[in-house]
């Protein structure tokens, strides 16, 4: 019995070792092609356990005209456990920074659900936007309602503005390529041209937040003694 186990383990080890040697050879070939100063490879390639997406904006080049002010979310639980998830949405709407709590949902394992969100929930009427509004939603997941946070997820960044009485919602590519890095109404075209002439890649333009109140402590690590 012991001998059999030993044989089995030895075979297993040899198999594993052979696979490992092949894997190493493949990786070495891949990495060595980057030259003498090849860098460190392979950190992180898997999907996240919790995902939050804009239903109408699945791709980085998504652009849609909304029929209403609804901008629903999709929440995906890719774990094998039921999760208690609270969702909030943050918006940078010209000089206003506003947050909306969408409450809590219970999501079974390996499922996805829709979560309603309406742009009118912001304390800002997007009709008045002079620059693209920047929106991101966050999901905070726990295994029990009061338990520690197990997972966090953010949506990709979404952008919105009103044009001809319609709400346009889009992801980063249209924001950059079609809507002037946020200057959808060409209000500050002179600045954009200034940046372009200087070879600057402009990825956003708008109003800074009004009256942000911070201290020197940004919550980050303190200096060590």
């Amino acid at each position, binding site marked *: 019995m012991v001998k059999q186990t030993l044989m089995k383990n030895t075979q297993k080890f040899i198999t*594993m*070792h052979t696979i*490992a*040697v092949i894997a*190493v050879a493949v*990786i070495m070939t891949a990495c060595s092609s*980057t030259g*003498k*100063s*090849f*860098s*460190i490879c*392979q*950190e*992180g*390639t*898997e999907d996240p*356990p919790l995902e939050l997406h804009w239903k109408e904006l699945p791709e980085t080049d998504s652009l849609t005209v909304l029929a209403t002010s609804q901008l629903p979310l999709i929440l995906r639980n890719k774990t094998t456990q039921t999760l208690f998830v609270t969702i909030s949405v*943050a918006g940078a709407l010209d000089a206003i920074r*506003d*947050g909306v709590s969408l409450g809590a949902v219970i999501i079974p394992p390996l499922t996805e659900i829709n979560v309603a969100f309406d742009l009118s929930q912001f304390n800002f009427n997007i009709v008045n936007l002079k620059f693209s509004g*920047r929106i*991101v939603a*966050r999901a905070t997941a726990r295994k029990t309602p009061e338990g*520690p*946070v*197990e*997972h*966090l*997820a*953010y949506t*990709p*960044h979404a952008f919105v503005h009103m044009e001809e009485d319609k709400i346009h919602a889009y992801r*980063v590519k249209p924001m950059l390529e079609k809507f002037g890095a*946020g200057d959808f109404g060409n209000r*500050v075209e002179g*600045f954009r041209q*200034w*940046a*372009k*002439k*200087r*070879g*600057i*890649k*402009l*990825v*956003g*333009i*708008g*109003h*800074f*937040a009004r009256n*942000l109140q*911070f201290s020197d402590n*940004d*919550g*980050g*690590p303190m200096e*060590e003694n």
Partner: protein
Amino acid sequence: MKNLIHKLVTVWIALICCATATTVFAVDQQICPRYPVETVDSGLGENFEDYYALNDQLWPYWKSRGAAYQVLDPDSLDIIQQGYGSSENGCFILSEEKIPASNEIMLVLYLESLLLDHIQVRAREGNVSECNNDPFANHSGEPEYCKPIACMGIMNNLTGVEKKYVDYTCNVPELTLQALANFPSYWWHHFDPASLNYDYIVTIQHQNGCPGNTPCSNAGFVKDVSYNEIRIRIDDLTEDKYRQKFLVGHEVGHSVEEAYQKSKFGTEVYLYGGYGLLGGGPDCSSGDESHALTSLEYTSDGIMEGFAHFLSSDVYNDHNSKHGRFTYYKDDLGFPRDISLEGETTFNETEPYKSNRFAEHVCNPVIQNAGTELDWLRFFWDLHTDSSNPAGEHLSMLKLRVDAAFSGTLWHAQNGYALLEENVCSGEADVQAYQANFLNFAGSNDALGGNGVEPTGIGPGCN
């Protein structure tokens, strides 16, 4: 005559009063840009100590230390002022005489910074190219890689003495990456750990890092440019990799090692063993990755990756806390990503990853010179945070790890531990100062806090 003197005195008093009044009412503006940063690995777990946790209901705003900026007159588009914010807090002073009469400015905030006068950290897109590295130069006509990335904002509340906090007006992955690369670069170098005597650039990209544009994240020197540049790539296959501060901190950790090795040994060749997975049973596999936190690897690889995990952990945790956390970014290993930096000395059969000496307890068989990144992470954390360690330990930690790789015998897949031990036994004085703790923490004695990274079974020791 008396009258004349009286008049002159009156005029002088008036002039002095005038000048004083100007001085009193002139208010320079201290402007402090902040990065809005979303991270998916903040504030997880129980009793977490990980900083930058859920500290803001909207966006956590991080200091944009050393960020490049330009102030424009909105009417003339003239550059009123340009420079870099403070490395300490990201702030800069705009003197009142430079503020336009309209009391409005356009502020250009770059995803680029200068830390401690010699380290540039920047986010870029496109393929590597030789560049003019002055962000304020005219880059029109240059390759995409050379074009600085920036966002612009209108500011018009330039009165009063209070600091003016402004948030970057852009939300793109490159902004998050800039923030996540900037802080660890600052953190490690402000201790002067590498004694660097040269300027260098850390460029971070949201781009797959492996050959053939296959997804992975990595860090390494850029070849064939006339300056020192280390490029970090964070894979763009998924939406959340660029939001993982421990992952970016890990890659910045590699860049810190590389900057130090270039400074001391003059080489850009990063030594590594080759990522050999060594079996050890299903609980010591890599979950289909080429390596992972608990996969059984040769010590050279375990040291290399474990040290980068440690550097990342050091950035975001308090040394004095028993609840330090490293959040691992590979989700397919079957245990929570939230890893306590202090391992349990008694083996935890239910949740083995919580225990010290993971490889010894869990992997079977453990061949000679094998170990796990998890054990090495805890080993380096213990060594660094032990209260008896000498001051200036950031530099000596780098010496311990990197000098071992470049001094004497060439580092290869299996000899990492032997070279490390040789270094602590006979290296520089501040490395030898670790000797007692090194031998205790490397061994397998739980009473001494052993992490079981000594791989020969003989036990660690200096002759």
